[in-house]
């Protein structure tokens, strides 16, 4: 599991603090907060390291001391902004997900290729594989990003608003998939999202950035409903 202790989150100045937080394997946890509250900052801090205020560790291993190479075997990050390239095919994009597991030359083994094929078809991307990543629609890009994180086969997957461009049915199936993967593959899956209703429906844990207490508060999903969630994360608004 992912453990955070005494962390202060913020780029220029601290936005909020985390006293003690454990994000458990097998559960789908969501991070909720207003725009600019610091959701991306927290995800960045876990995935990329950098200035660390406080302790972040996974299964007892402190992340701050890890090299990028080792960290890449533990954490995958799906960003809200897609980073493809005109000459990169979707196939190549997905194959990059195997980066931590390939050897010096970066060549994919048969097993690696099989993993890529399986996950690509699981997310409905197989007819897009030869296309340039830049020609994908926003929804297809998001699915590709998530696929790549799954291909990376890490115990922790962090996602920054992964469903914002998907249509409603796809949003639901994506959340369902993430929950399923978390449970079946015993992963820590933490995603930041604005879709409060979907979060309440599919997630197991709620992590809310409370602007009044300036703390990250955590609840089991059953403990909150929509209105209390809104009050917690966004102040006393409607």
């Amino acid at each position: 599991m992912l453990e955070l202790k005494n962390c202060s989150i913020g780029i220029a100045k601290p936005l909020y603090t985390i006293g003690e937080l454990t994000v458990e394997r097998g559960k789908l946890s969501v991070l909720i907060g207003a725009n600019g509250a610091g959701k991306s900052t927290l995800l960045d801090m876990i995935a990329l390291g950098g200035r660390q205020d406080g302790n972040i560790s996974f299964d007892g291993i402190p992340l701050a001391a890890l090299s990028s190479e080792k960290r890449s075997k533990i954490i995958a990050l799906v960003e809200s902004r897609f980073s493809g390239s005109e000459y990169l095919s979707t196939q190549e994009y997905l194959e990059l997900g195997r980066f931590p597991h390939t050897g010096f030359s970066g060549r994919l083994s048969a097993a690696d290729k099989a993993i890529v094929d399986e996950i690509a078809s699981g997310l409905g991307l197989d007819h897009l594989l030869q296309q340039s990543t830049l020609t994908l629609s926003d929804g297809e890009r998001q699915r590709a990003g998530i696929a790549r994180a799954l291909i990376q086969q890490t115990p922790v997957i962090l996602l920054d608003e992964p469903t914002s461009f998907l249509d409603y049915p796809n949003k639901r199936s994506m959340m369902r998939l993430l929950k399923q993967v978390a449970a079946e593959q015993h992963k820590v899956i933490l995603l930041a999202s604005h879709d409060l209703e979907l979060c309440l429906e599919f997630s197991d844990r709620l992590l809310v950035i409370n602007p009044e207490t300036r703390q990250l508060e955590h609840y089991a999903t059953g403990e909150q409903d929509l209105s209390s969630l809104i009050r917690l994360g966004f102040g006393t608004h409607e």
Partner: protein
Amino acid sequence: MRNWHLGLIIGLLVLLVVAFGMPREGEAWFAWMFPLKGEEMNQYNLLTEFRIPRIAMALVAGVSLSISGLLLQTLFNNPLAGPSILGLTSGAHLFVAITVLGTGFLSGPLLDAGITASAGLGALVFGLLILLVAGKVRSHVSLLLIGMMLGTFVSAVTEILLSRSDPNALKAFTMWSFGSLQNVAFDQLPVILVCTLLGCIAAFFIVKPLNALVLGERQAKVLGVNIRRTQWLILIIVSLLTGLVTAFCGPIAFVGLIVPNLVKIFYRTGNHQQLLVGSALAGAIFMLLCDLLIVLLEPVISLPVNSLTSVIGAPVVVMLLLKKGRHA
């Protein structure tokens, strides 16, 4: 992919044959193979002192600059990056000027080594400067502009430095800016070729992190790339290759910029193993073609190589810019 490689290799071989055989004014093809009695020494000199160094330097320049350009474009995630446009060439020249001014006593191979080392150092220093700046700049075009300003500034400083030392040095500086593939002697070739080969081989060693860098620094880091180390390696390789070319040929603009872009358009891949091979081959072909053109036109007009690559390169850059307008 294989097809492109094969096509380029064949093209290169054909061009090499043409380059070796191309008749000069009043001669026949492959004239040097059939010298008249008593002319053997002269034809031998013409081949070894004039023709071979020229062809070799065209290959060296084409390969080195194209690979440097490809590496820089991936490093900065910017298709408009290149060694001369980002000011690395001017930086290399500044250091060479300082070395030449300061070490009047060096000569021969030691001077060559000294010049190559200082050119590489100059390119490295300015590469680091640009890297520093790149972190703070959002748009691709802004980085370009900063690089160009840096290059202009450094060139002006070099010009002032040289003009204060010796009026002839100023003339030499102007001549340097024309670029030349003909200033290398036959016995300088082994060292130049070895250094170029080293640089190219080193580039192939970092294919894996280069592939990941296509996704940008953040994603590459998440995938496990040691960003700092990779940046340093790229800069060192680029400095070696660019420094080498600048030291012996002067500035040759745009090759590093347009060749990798053209290769990417045709190869349509993010795999740097393919792109490195393609860029090296295409770069060699491009420079060889330029030199052949210069030879063809020699009786009519003497075209400086830097002017020729600029005349071809600038419109291609504009085309690329227009094509990528929405991403700039």
